[in-house]
């Protein structure tokens, strides 16, 4: 067994220094489309290429509903007037509304948070990225975040996938079984808006259709750092992203 210990020591620390410092390694995030100011005549063809209708034109700029973007790159590749591309990964947004009176997660949860994951029909990419947050490069244990298999211990319900018809009951039951205070985190375009699967006989079209969602992490799939940002946001250790997030139906850019 000693050879494994030695091997581990030889490898050294691989873990990112985020959230302390920004992660600068290449390939940690696929980025997101950034909208466009004064797009002119080229706007319409770009907007019509979006398969999930996440783009729209308003007051001389193209706005993007981040909850719907599925990273198909059709607004940037092979098109005139391509949208700007934002790198970065601090994408999580708060979707709480002001009239919310449910108990808040107190300060004690900041460094001791138990997460219950429920798979509402995620495609595997979100799952794989979620697995990464538990692995050496991201390692959420150092932040005081833990995965739990039981709702009774959970403070945060993390859901990925559009919530299939067969999982609807399980998601609701898991949420109901969690003690208060509790928060819901929707991870990925599918969990936020149904994504490419939309609303149909087989899927609900996102977690917000079933239960109140507090934090949303857009992306298809959201990279591990974006998911960590979402968790940090849920315990108020990070401010929300400056992306358009509508509980906010009007979709104004917050920044």
């Amino acid at each position: 067994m000693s050879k494994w210990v030695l091997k581990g020591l030889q490898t050294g620390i691989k873990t990112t220094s985020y959230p302390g410092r920004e992660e600068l390694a290449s390939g940690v995030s696929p980025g997101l489309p950034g909208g466009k100011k004064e797009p002119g005549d080229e706007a319409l063809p770009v907007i019509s290429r979006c398969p999930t209708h996440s783009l729209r034109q308003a007051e001389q700029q193209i706005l993007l509903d981040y909850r719907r973007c599925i990273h198909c790159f059709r607004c940037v590749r092979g098109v005139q007037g391509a949208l700007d591309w934002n790198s970065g990964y601090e994408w999580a947004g708060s979707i709480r509304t002001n009239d919310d009176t449910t108990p808040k997660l107190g300060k004690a949860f900041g460094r001791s948070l138990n997460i219950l994951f429920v798979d509402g029909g995620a495609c595997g990419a979100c799952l794989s990225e979620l697995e990464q947050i538990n692995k050496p490069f991201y390692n959420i244990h150092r932040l005081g975040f833990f995965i739990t298999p039981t709702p009774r211990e959970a403070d945060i319900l993390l859901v990925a996938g559009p919530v299939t018809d067969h999982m609807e009951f399980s998601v609701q039951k898991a949420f109901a079984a969690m003690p208060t205070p509790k928060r819901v985190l929707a991870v990925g375009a599918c969990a936020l808006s149904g994504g490419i699967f939309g609303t149909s006989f087989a899927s609900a079209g996102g977690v917000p259709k079933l239960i109140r969602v507090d934090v949303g992490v857009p992306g298809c799939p959201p990279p591990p750092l974006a998911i960590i940002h979402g968790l940090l946001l849920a315990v108020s250790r990070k401010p929300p992203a400056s992306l358009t997030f509508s509980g906010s139906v009007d979709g104004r850019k917050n920044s």
Partner: protein
Amino acid sequence: MERLLHDTVSLNNLSEEIALRWPEQVRVNPDLQNGLCRMECEASVLTEVCSWLFSKMGYSFASLIVEEEPAEFSLRYIFYGDLENGQVHILYRILKTKATVPSISHFVHAADWHEREAEDLFGLVFEDHPRLGDFVLHEEWPEGVNPMRTDFDASKLYVHREVNPYWRPVRIVQAPGAFMMPIGPIYSDFAESAHFLLETVGEDVIRTIPRFFYKYRGVEKIAEGRTIDEVLLLAERFSGTSAFAHSLAFCQAVEEISRVEVPPRAGALRIFLAELERLRHHIASIAGICGSTALAVATSQASILEEELLRLCCALTGHRYLFGLNTPGGVVMDFSNEALRKLEDTIQGLFKKLEELKKMLSFSSSFLDRLEEVGTVSLESGVSYGLVGPIARASGITRDLRRVLPYSGYEKVEFIIPCEQEGDGYARLRILFSEAKQSANIISQVASSLPPGPILPPPFAVPRGAALGWAEAPKGATFHWVRTAEDGRVVRYRVTPPSFTNWHGFHLAAEDFAFQDFPIIMATFGLSNAESDR
């Protein structure tokens, strides 16, 4: 395997042989140019012909494709053999008023789940099938509502049926102290939604009854009426960890319908990216297996390689899981030869670390103890269940679509198909390592011999037609059947993913084992419910 392969069979004499055996009942229409033999078969001999192909001629069962026409159903049974044997498509038509189909799954057990699925989704009745009923659709679905039928409105939620709260699963094991242990659909860390009933007498599990389709998103139904570009997104996103392979199979079906040649450079890039995906997938599976035995350092080592590959993919293509690259006709992005060679260099470096890990694992007795003789699948059951991919190759079945039905230029690439005989967890792990090695080799070969030229053909329209596309996905053979209408929209899309095929055989491995081996058997199978459930 030798046992099964008929020495004299080839596509040429297959049609003659069939014409001799069933002169009246089967109309044969060989299409040798495409390595394909189409035939239309009468109900009376359907079972006979299928079982003859499967058990005597050594063909593998690929898929059952049901299509609804105004007055009848057409059922297409697809078989494939080795290189010289090509594919066999058996068409069987049945009037809607009749709707009782002879079941072939008594003889072609691989078709079992396909028939159950067709029963659930189309309302077809398969005569003498031992186990029809709740499969894709769970108990809250009313009887007689079949979502794949054309008159079903896919946009609306259906009304759930009241479920009997006192329903309990049927217990087979009757022994003192025997009980049923339910696992799922929500369980452990980031496990996918699936349900397993373990029949146990305490420590030993006698058998496992899995229940899937919790993640059924109706991909095949919601694809209907959409454009090719929209369905491509579905093909890519129903199983994110093998997105490239599935989008490749879909694109190849569309290219076949449109009779479009893929430029050689695009074909080579597709091989490069597909093998990159396979390499990443296998390393992730290896990490999963190490994780299931709680060997923490090995899990970390494999996970580090996995994340490094994800980052390389993202730096090269813009997406960590290779989304948005395939398009009918070719690929949307070209890469400089230099960039690919540089990447290839890095991959060889990663591969060396992987070899080192393999060596260390093969000397860790505590790790091997957990894998050896755990979850064994025999060659016979593997063949009868039609298993595919690394799981099949660990049980001695070497059929690989890259070799037997070469696509995208794989016939020009040199590689070997690794094969093990034991069929246990350790054999499956060794296969993953050997395949990763082959993928790294293929990546080197392609990177050093990329043909120049365009990556897309001239723009083309998709006419009316139907075709089968296939690819060897990381988890095994995948088949995508696409039918288009005059306007180029998809009217029928049928995916047969490898996880669907292999979950069918999962219970073979999960029988007579100790409780603590369950996660290990799961991990060595390494299957995806997202891929299986669609």
